[in-house]
């Protein structure tokens, strides 16, 4: 994708906000999961201690990521696996395509993995004549519809069951199908089952990789992940380099934090762990592709670094008042919501106008930070990135930057606030200038950028006397 060829957040958010069906689907789904999460989190007396432990483990990993990565590589090789290093998406896709082609396969099965979505693996494979079948129910829905995921955990959150029924009837050639969730799941199950048994190569992401032992973990709800990681002869796992934990015992923390934060469950129904290969049991070939794709740039930023602590639970999406109204597609990234607003610009860089608009897609309400299981201070990173965006634009310079109304207003006001006499003159100017706009005690029609305010809100006129004038006369 050409840099900056996607729209900014503010350019398309309105389009999604207006879609009543989408609003209802996402509002209903996020409210439900948000309330359930609250209940299972309240059960634990030590939730805050767990969050702090999760944060500290991740911080420890980031501080010595180079060392842990080498330790992981060594452990995986020792257990009979093969480790590949990919600097970017292209690199990773090339490695995976080559591995599948060597096995002369044209069809592979996939576990839901946002990291493979990030590198657009399915499209890259399709271009090489390889079909990757998504086996997670929601990912399958998105794939059959030719759509994009709109949520980290619930990729088809924007679709309701009536829409899914129509899709399945059409794409799976079913004459009769109800919109009951059980019937829809059964239809998918029958379709997927024969593909699981046929496939010789499985592709997965990973929730965690343990440096100490080389063990990789996938947690899921449907059992399709278990099938993909155990049935095929060969397994290829794509793992972002930040997914490492040092030791087995660290999982004690994350296996409590993750399910409660993501699906609002005490434990995931399926927790699959594998360490290299086991003779006569499961895949006899295991490839681990360690992906950078911008992550080391994030690591280099002292404030932004905490973004890499993310365990992809999506609790921040479910509490975000912005996400709840726009849905995931408005972010134009596989990582939507608050975490996407800080991760995407750091991964893609600020030359990408679409990504650079994301730190502004927040009212800074702070609900995301409150629920984050590893205590990523998302508002802090948002503000840090806004500053980086401003500095980046200043460096770019040019006519457009110099005449940007927001930039001019900020410069003007910073100057005015720096001196009492200028500040007081500005107060008087406001009072004089408003006579033109004030009508019956309200201002309802301001010009330029401010018209976005007065399109739905009145402005209270500046009163005759400021507080300081009253104080002086007192």
């Amino acid at each position, binding site marked *: 994708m050409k840099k900056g060829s996607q729209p900014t*957040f*503010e350019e398309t*958010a*309105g389009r999604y*906000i207006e879609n009543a069906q989408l609003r209802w689907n996402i509002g209903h789904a996020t409210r439900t999961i948000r309330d359930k999460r609250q209940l299972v989190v309240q059960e634990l007396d030590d939730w805050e201690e767990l969050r702090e432990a999760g944060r500290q483990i991740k911080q420890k990993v980031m501080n010595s990521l180079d060392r842990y990565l080498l330790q992981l590589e060594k452990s995986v090789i020792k257990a009979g696996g093969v480790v590949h290093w990919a600097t970017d998406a292209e690199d990773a896709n090339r490695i995976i395509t080559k591995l599948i082609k060597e096995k002369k396969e044209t069809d592979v099965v996939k576990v839901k993995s946002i990291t493979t979505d990030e590198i657009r693996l399915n499209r890259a494979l399709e271009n090489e004549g390889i079909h990757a079948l998504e086996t997670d129910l929601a990912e399958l829905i998105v794939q059959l519809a030719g759509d994009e995921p709109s949520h980290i955990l619930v990729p088809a959150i924007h679709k309701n069951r009536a829409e899914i029924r129509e899709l399945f009837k059409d794409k799976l050639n079913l004459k009769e199908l109800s919109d009951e969730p059980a019937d829809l799941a059964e239809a998918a199950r029958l379709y997927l089952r024969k593909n699981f048994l046929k496939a010789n190569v499985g592709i997965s992401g990973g929730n965690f990789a343990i440096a100490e032992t080389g063990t990789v973990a996938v947690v899921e709800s449907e059992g399709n992940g278990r099938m993909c990681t155990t049935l095929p002869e060969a397994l290829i796992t794509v793992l972002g380099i930040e997914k490492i934990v040092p030791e087995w015992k660290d999982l004690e923390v994350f296996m409590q934090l993750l399910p409660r934060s993501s699906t609002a469950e005490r434990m995931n129904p399926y927790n699959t762990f594998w360490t290299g290969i086991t003779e006569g049991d499961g895949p006899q070939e295991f490839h681990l592709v360690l992906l950078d794709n911008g992550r080391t740039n994030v690591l280099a930023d002292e404030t932004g670094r905490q973004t890499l602590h993310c365990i992809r639970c999506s609790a921040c999406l479910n509490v975000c*008042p*912005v996400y709840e*109204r*726009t849905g995931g597609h408005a972010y134009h990234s596989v990582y939507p919501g608050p975490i996407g607003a800080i991760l995407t610009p750091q991964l893609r860089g600020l030359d990408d106008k679409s990504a650079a608009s994301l*730190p*502004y*897609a*927040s*009212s*800074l*309400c*702070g*609900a995301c*930070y*409150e629920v984050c299981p590893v205590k990523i201070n998302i508002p802090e990173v948002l*503000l840090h990135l*806004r*500053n*980086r*965006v*401003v500095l980046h634009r200043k460096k770019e310079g040019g006519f457009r930057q110099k005449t940007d109304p*927001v930039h001019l207003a*900020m*410069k003007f*006001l*910073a100057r005015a*606030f*720096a*001196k*009492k006499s200028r*500040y007081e003159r500005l*107060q008087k100017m*406001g009072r004089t200038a408003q006579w033109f706009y004030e009508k019956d005690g*309200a201002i*309802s029609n301001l010009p330029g*950028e*401010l018209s*976005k*305010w007065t*399109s*739905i*809100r*009145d*402005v*209270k006129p*500046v*009163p005759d*006397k*400021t*507080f*300081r004038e*009253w*104080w*002086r006369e007192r």
Partner: protein
Amino acid sequence: MNISLFITCFNDTLYPETGKAVVSILERLGHTVHFPMEQTCCGQMHYNTGYHEEIIPLVERFADQFENAEAVVSPSASCVGMIHEFYPKLAALSGSKVLQDRIDALIPKVHEFTMFLVNELKVEDVGAYYPHRVTYHSTCHSLRSLKIGDAPHRLLRNVKGIELVDLPGALECCGFGGTFALKNADTSAAMLGDKIRHIKETGAEVCTSADNSCLMHIGGALNRQRSGVKTVHMAEILNTTEEGAQV
């Protein structure tokens, strides 16, 4: 006690009545209020929009004005949140160790008005009388940046004649977010629309909070819709007695 008022540029210019109410309540409680005339703006709007380097002079200015105060009180939860959370970062950004030390020493003395009454002065009943149906909007900065707790509720519950009604979806943002309301006008409008709906559901005559910035946002829409609901800062409610507003 000698209390220095940080009025904030916003209240100074647009909501002087809130400032007058704060002065009146503190004086009624037997304290002396000071108003350093050189104060201007905390720089929150700049900071939230990404302009950080520009407002280091405002941090210095704030320290100049208030570091000798016994206590600093401000009727704006978001400006106090800005000072507590981000002034240390800005002081660090300035590279001046002196400014960092000055800010570190000053911050514990800076209080949001309702928290100051309840937690510092230990006052929950200020003798107010306000015979109206009122709903309280807990602003995001009050809730999550300042951890305001139940200070406003304690004060409001002690107001005679008041009928307090819970606001549905109280923990949700009103969609203001400073320049967010302009930059992401569509999203802000959608959030505000839901907030207004909830306020109307309560049947309240008055929506109050510890911050005029959210109230300007909410009140702007209530006024445009001719809803008959008005927005009033908490200080003004607390300053109304059986003899009327005490200014």
